[in-house]
């Protein structure tokens, strides 16, 4: 949503997708973290980003969120390169909870997203229900379990009414039950029209969620395509080794 | 949660500001710069309520050394100065900071020391006592703070023919504090100290100390009062300040001064001239 003059909130008239990365590089000192990555993300089924540790998945997501700036190359949203997008949100692998209750965490995210005070209470309840935390609304957020905190982080992200939701290995530290809960929320969000871009370590998760897969290695995109194609018939040998479970250097 | 805390903080702040309101809206008051010896003797606690009851003017006393009190007057931070060092007061007058000087009261200085009197100075002659102290290098506490008492002490050394600046050694301790503090130090160190009688009589921590030399004419201590010159500092409350000066030298004020006693002993002796000096 965009805050127009007079305090009204209106839907942004333009869409922020497709997200196009054109030969984007990212350096940290002498190290090349992303090397001429070219990628197009369009609306539709979830895109899962896979690859070994250090491939640059996290950096790619952070760059898409605006937490990092590219050292070279161009990033365009919805065909524009002048204005940063508003309706995007991110969930980190280890979420940081504000030192307040679960409901207040969500209310905070709503406030930052420009939702007027009188509308917040209803939205907070709605979001708590959506992630299954209605019973814990008054609990101090930092005392929630890992899975509950991740679901709360999801609620905070969804509070921003995003067009694109970035997730950085959100279930990597969670037990299977908590992971399933998170995946269900993500799937429902995708079915509701939100574009999901998610880094994952878990090939089973890729099979369950992905429409498209992007395979990264050493800061570059090695292969990308429809999930079924990639998982059953990868075109590159590295992808093959990766899917077999080898350590791909 | 945040708004509740904000409301609480605001309420607390209002409460404290209002708590100051009575002090700020005090109707009539004057600031009198006086000396620590007068304050420590308790005279003001006795005298001022009488003045306030009669005139409705509150008197705020700042107690400092005489030199400091006169400087406060020079800066215009006081309306009246009430001190006891005639030479310094006349300099103040000559510089144009005071309107007119009036004698108010006198008492005397006494030489205090340990009852056992290790230096053997007991007697009636202050000059020979000081000479003995210096010769025997007996421990001596000096105010060291440009106060009336300090000024008198320095004058006495000079009269005794001693150049104290050159002649002082580690036996001479200048502490730069008020009379009470000096007596405390003398009590703790078993030393000699020059004090005004008023402070001594009301002092409670005597320990082993006692009066060793008194009655010498040179130990006479005169107090004077002056209104700070409104021409130098237009903010001086000249009417109320003058009212205080007038009351001090009036028969009523003089009788009040004479009425101040501790353990039946009178501390200050009124001596204002009927027409001022």
């Amino acid at each position, binding site marked *: 949503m965009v805050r127009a003059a007079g305090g009204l909130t209106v839907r942004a008239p333009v869409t922020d997708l497709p997200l196009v990365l054109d030969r984007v590089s990212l350096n940290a000192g002498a190290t090349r973290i992303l090397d001429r990555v070219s990628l197009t993300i369009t609306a539709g089924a979830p895109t899962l980003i896979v690859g070994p540790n250090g491939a640059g998945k996290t950096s790619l997501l952070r760059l898409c969120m*605006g937490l990092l700036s590219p050292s070279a190359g161009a990033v365009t949203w919805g065909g524009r390169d002048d204005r940063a997008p508003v309706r995007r949100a991110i969930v980190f692998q280890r*979420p*940081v909870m504000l030192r307040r209750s679960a409901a207040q965490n969500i209310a905070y995210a709503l406030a*930052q997203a420009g939702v007027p005070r009188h509308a917040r209470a209803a939205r907070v309840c709605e979001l708590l229900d959506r992630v299954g935390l209605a019973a814990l609304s008054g609990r101090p957020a930092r005392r929630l379990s890992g899975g509950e905190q991740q679901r709360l982080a999801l609620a905070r992200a969804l509070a921003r009414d995003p067009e694109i939701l970035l997730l950085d290995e959100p279930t990597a530290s969670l037990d299977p039950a908590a992971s399933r809960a998170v995946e269900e929320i993500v799937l429902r969000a995708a079915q509701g029209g939100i574009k999901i871009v998610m880094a994952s370590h878990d090939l089973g998760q890729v099979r369950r969620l992905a429409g498209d897969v992007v395979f990264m290695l050493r800061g570059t995109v090695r292969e990308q395509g429809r999930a079924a194609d990639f998982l059953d018939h990868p075109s590159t040998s590295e992808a093959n080794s990766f899917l077999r479970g080898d350590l791909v250097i | 949660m945040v708004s509740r805390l904000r409301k609480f903080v605001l309420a607390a702040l209002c409460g404290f500001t209002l708590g100051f309101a009575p002090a700020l809206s005090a109707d009539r008051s004057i600031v009198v710069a006086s000396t620590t010896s007068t304050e420590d003797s308790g005279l003001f606690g006795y005298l001022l309520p009488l003045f306030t009851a009669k005139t409705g003017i509150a008197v705020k*006393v700042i107690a400092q050394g005489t030199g400091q009190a006169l400087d406060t007057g020079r800066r215009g931070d006081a309306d009246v100065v009430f001190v006891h060092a005639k030479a310094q007061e006349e300099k103040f007058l000559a510089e144009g900071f005071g309107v007119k000087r009036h004698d108010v009261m006198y008492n005397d200085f006494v030489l205090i020391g340990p009852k056992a009197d290790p230096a053997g100075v007991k007697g009636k002659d202050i000059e020979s006592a000081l000479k003995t102290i210096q010769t025997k290098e007996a421990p001596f506490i000096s105010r060291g703070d440009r106060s009336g008492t300090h000024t008198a002490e320095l004058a006495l050394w000079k009269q005794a023919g001693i150049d104290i600046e050159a002649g002082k050694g580690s036996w001479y301790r200048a502490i730069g504090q008020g009379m009470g503090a000096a007596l405390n130090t003398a009590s703790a160190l078993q030393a000699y100290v020059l004090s005004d009688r008023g402070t001594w009589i009301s002092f409670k921590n005597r320990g082993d100390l006692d009066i060793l030399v008194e009655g010498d004419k040179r130990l006479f201590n005169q107090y004077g009062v002056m209104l700070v010159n409104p021409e130098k500092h237009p903010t001086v409350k000249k009417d109320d300040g003058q009212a205080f000066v007038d009351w001090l030298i009036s028969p009523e004020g003089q009788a009040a001064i004479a009425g101040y006693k501790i353990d039946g002993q009178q501390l200050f002796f009124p001596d204002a001239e009927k027409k001022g000096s």
Partner: protein
Amino acid sequence: MSDELSAWQLIIGLDPALLAIVRLSLAVSLSALALAALIGLPLGAMLALLRFPGRPVFVVLLNALMGLPPVVVGLAVYLLLSRSGPLGAFGLLFTPTAMVIAQTIIIIPIIAAPTRQTVEDLWHEYRDELIAMDVGPIGRMMTLLWDARVSLFTAVLAGFGRAAAEVGAVMIVGGNIEGFTRTMTTAVVLETSKGNLPLAMGLGIILVAMVIAINAVVWTTRAWSARQAG
């Protein structure tokens, strides 16, 4: 205040002069604390979040000012507020307001310096999330200050302790005037110099009890807050 009565008799008899002194001490120290917190908390937070050339110098300076000698502040404020000084027209010298001003200056660094450290540490933890939620600079400051409140209580308490114990500055700018600017600490000095050591000690004990009571209140609030924060 009567010299003959002991300190305990004064407390039990609720001696009005004693009550006035206690009320003034609390009013001055708590007012100075409120003002210093109002200034020092945002100041520390801003210094933690902003980046500008020469910032390390300011950080070191702020830390060093925690050790600013109170008497020096008292003297400086005295010269400022004196009738012969630049702010003399306000007639604030020898009033409780002057005492509040001096104490506020003294305790601002005591609150601001630890705040800067606490907010800086918390920023490292919150950085990604707050940027991801599009939180602006003022929002970051407010959020970090609120979330760090449990730690900041300690800084604020340190400030109060210093204000309540302070005697040099309030003596100089207040003048220790009976009934107007006499606080617990300056009363202790006065009674000591009059040789009334038992009374002075009694006043001192009352002062310590007052500070302990306030610390207890803050401790309870802090514990409650910590439970809320999780």
